[in-house]
């Protein structure tokens, strides 16, 4: 697997894995920079090149996850990236999946019962996911920012938050599994493919997202909490 460097062009990165496009967006990197190398593009747009490369490489390559390097960045930078990811989910990806599912159900001319069960399952999953994202935005992130400013007001601790991620990912896996194995295929196959593709993309993205939260942000916070308590 390629590890991108300062000398990689945006083209090289996207050619290798076009699923990196949203990642590039979230870092704040815009397209249309001709064929400049990434460090040039980042410096023009005021983005930290090393951070950008770390995020891009960890997303592209599951085996690549240099924790010390990642933890060396300020939690604020990490949170900004995570917040942008939430925006991507809330403003684009989740509504997109909603739309595809609704089309899938409409495309079924005969018995819709099974797909309606799937829809029920998806809605419950979505509800849990939105709640989780909301808690991160309303509680966790502000808490982290307060910690880094030394303006911590309440007795919140990061430990409460840690275990949430597995449940959410489980259901996404189940959703895929149900469609691939068990649901009667009485719907438009092309629409189903689109829906499944979107689910796969979402799964990969959110798993990456969770990895950064669990392995980078939370340890950083625990460290700061310990520092503050001493």
């Amino acid at each position, binding site marked *: 697997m390629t590890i991108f460097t300062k000398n990689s062009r945006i083209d090289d990165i996207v050619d290798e894995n076009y699923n990196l496009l949203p990642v590039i967006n979230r870092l704040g990197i815009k397209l249309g920079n001709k064929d400049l190398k990434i460090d040039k593009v980042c410096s023009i747009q005021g983005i930290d090149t090393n951070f950008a490369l770390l995020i891009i490489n960890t997303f592209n390559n599951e085996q690549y996850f240099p924790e010390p390097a990642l933890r060396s960045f300020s939690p604020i930078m990490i949170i900004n990236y995570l917040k942008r990811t939430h925006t991507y989910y809330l403003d684009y990806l989740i509504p997109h999946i909603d739309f595809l599912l609704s089309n899938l159900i409409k495309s079924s001319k*005969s018995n819709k*019962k099974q797909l309606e*069960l799937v829809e029920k399952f998806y809605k419950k999953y979505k509800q849990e996911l939105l709640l989780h994202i909301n808690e991160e935005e309303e509680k966790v992130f502000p808490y982290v920012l307060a910690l880094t400013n030394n303006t911590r007001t309440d007795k919140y601790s990061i430990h409460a938050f840690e275990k949430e991620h597995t449940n959410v990912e489980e259901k996404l896996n189940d959703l895929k599994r*149900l469609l691939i194995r068990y649901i009667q295929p009485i719907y438009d196959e092309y629409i189903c493919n689109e829906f499944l593709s979107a689910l796969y993309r979402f799964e990969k993205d959110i798993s990456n997202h969770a990895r950064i939260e669990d392995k980078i942000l939370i340890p950083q916070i625990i460290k700061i909490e310990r520092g503050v308590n001493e």
Partner: protein
Amino acid sequence: MNNIIYIIHKSEIISKGISCILQERYNCSVKNYHNAEELIKNEQKTIHKQAIILIEEIISSQETFQIFIRNNPTLSMLKIIASERDANDTGNYDSISIMNTESEFLRIVNDLFVFDRKESGSSEGLTKRETEVLKLVASGFSNKEIADKLFISTHTVISHRKNITEKLDIKSISGLTVYAMINNIVNPASLSGLDLI
């Protein structure tokens, strides 16, 4: 096959007709009732765990019966629909119409005998016991409650659940519930199942 089948229908002619078809084809006992209260009163304590109930649609929506089904989730249920509605086509396995042909009817009923199928006749190579556990999981019972109902230990229940998850590759309870509903292991029409998802 040693299933006991209960038919609850106001019409004796329909009850007896269905009873006749079933007994020709399966080795089973059939008991007829005119209404749900009679069945519940007589069979409350003795009803076989894996009995099948064929019930006139209107009666099935009565609250007493709904509660009865919820308290006995291992029972299978099939609604009998009146003649004005279209005969049931494939995919809808929770009801039959009296306008269905005999073979359509038998095909649908056949799926209800899931507990009697041996080896991998049950879905996805789930054993009979695993299917029973799945049914209870999908009905919302805790491990302890399942253990009590099946007279096994909680440890065994957990072990069964691990196997089920591994065979199906479905991890969440809601996911298992959807699977169970699709495969008629749990009645899609039962309230408890729908709430869980």
